């Protein structure tokens, strides 16, 4: 009986480990600006987010690399909104996520904290190690791409559902 319990425990642990993916970094391309004062506004806005540990700004290319505090939930939508609050737009948004033997299938959700990621580019695969995923929802891609996107649902991202590609 005890053996059975142990097997169950181990299995439960393995399943938990298998789906435990961790966001390590977010990369943002900001658009609509060409002044350092504007870039500074975004930098300072990103710094105010409670789960953000560090923001590295590339002033030349208007990109931002965001790292997070340990054991915190990353709210991707909040990051995007901060850029918009500073007066600009996000035209590129990627996240480095550490996967541990995670099976990904088309249109099947992968839960990372409170966020649910839907992989939209095809083939089923098992992800291992640090992998960069690109967000393709409206507000996370250039305005032009947003208009043509099949994944243009701000209500979904508000609810924590994101469409991503690898």
């Amino acid at each position: 009986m005890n053996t059975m319990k142990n097997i169950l425990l181990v299995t439960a642990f393995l399943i938990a480990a298998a789906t435990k993916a961790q966001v390590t970094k977010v990369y943002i391309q900001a658009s609509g600006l060409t002044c350092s004062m504007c870039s500074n506004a975004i930098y300072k806005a990103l710094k105010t987010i409670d789960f953000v540990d560090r923001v590295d700004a590339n002033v030349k290319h208007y990109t931002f690399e965001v790292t997070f505090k340990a054991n915190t939930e990353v709210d991707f939508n909040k990051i995007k909104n901060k850029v918009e609050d500073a007066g600009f737009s996000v035209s590129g948004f990627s996240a480095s996520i550490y996967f541990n033997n995670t099976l990904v299938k088309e249109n099947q959700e992968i839960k990372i904290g409170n966020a649910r990621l839907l992989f939209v580019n095809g083939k089923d695969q098992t992800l291992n190690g640090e992998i960069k995923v690109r967000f393709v929802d409206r507000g996370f891609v250039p305005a032009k791409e947003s208009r043509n996107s099949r994944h243009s649902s701000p209500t979904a991202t508000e609810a924590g559902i994101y469409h991503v590609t690898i």
Partner: protein
Amino acid sequence: MKNFFFLLLILIPPLVWSQELYSLTEPASNRAVGSIGFRIDHSIMDELNTSKINYHLIPEVMAGVSKKLMISGNVFFSNRSDVFKYEGGSLYAKYRFFSNDAIQRHFRMAAFGRLSYNNSDIHQEEIALNGHNTGMEWGIVATQLLRKLALSTSISYVKATDNGRNNKFIYGHDYSKAINYTFSIGKLMLPKEYKDYKQTNLNLMVEFLGQVNSGSGDYYMDIAPVVQVIVSSQVRFDLGYRKELKSTLLRTAPNGFFVRLEYIFFNVF
């Protein structure tokens, strides 16, 4: 006129970046949410047909309320009536209703309005809500950013009423309304390439400011070249000169220098 086009040519070389933080007009872009800006404007205007210099001091506070809305308020002081004194103030709001952003460019449109109070005597046909007339103004502004270059144009309706302290608008009701129109060009000159926020930015701007009185049809057209320096992406200093190009309106002191100092605090509220 020839000189003007020559000036445009030197300001717009083929490979350009931009700036849109104009001195005499506002761009369609807004302030960062939660930011508060403090600004002090000085203008030193040469009074026509006298040896007098009119000095205006206008402190202003600006706030980014949401990503689409900003508000600001300012207070007017001047020595135009011989003693330096408080003359009024104004409230301003701007709402960005359209924004199309791309990397290093944008096109934006905003609606704006201003309510002004002034207690000095009415002394010119020109309607100026920034320290001369009590009244209101509303209009729209469109701004195009193309890398280092920013172009902006606005059109607005201005209505003057009687000033405070029983200073009547003496030109009559028909002449109390006007259309303002502006065209501004701003260009980022330095740095050639951004490396960090500490780099000092140098911008050159030229603004054209026009008004036509809807009652009399009289008008003016001014030009204002401006040099602007931004230090540490937070402190801003503008130096400009406003010059009347042509006018059929009675104006007291259309020509003179102006200086602006501004400091922005981010994430205050």
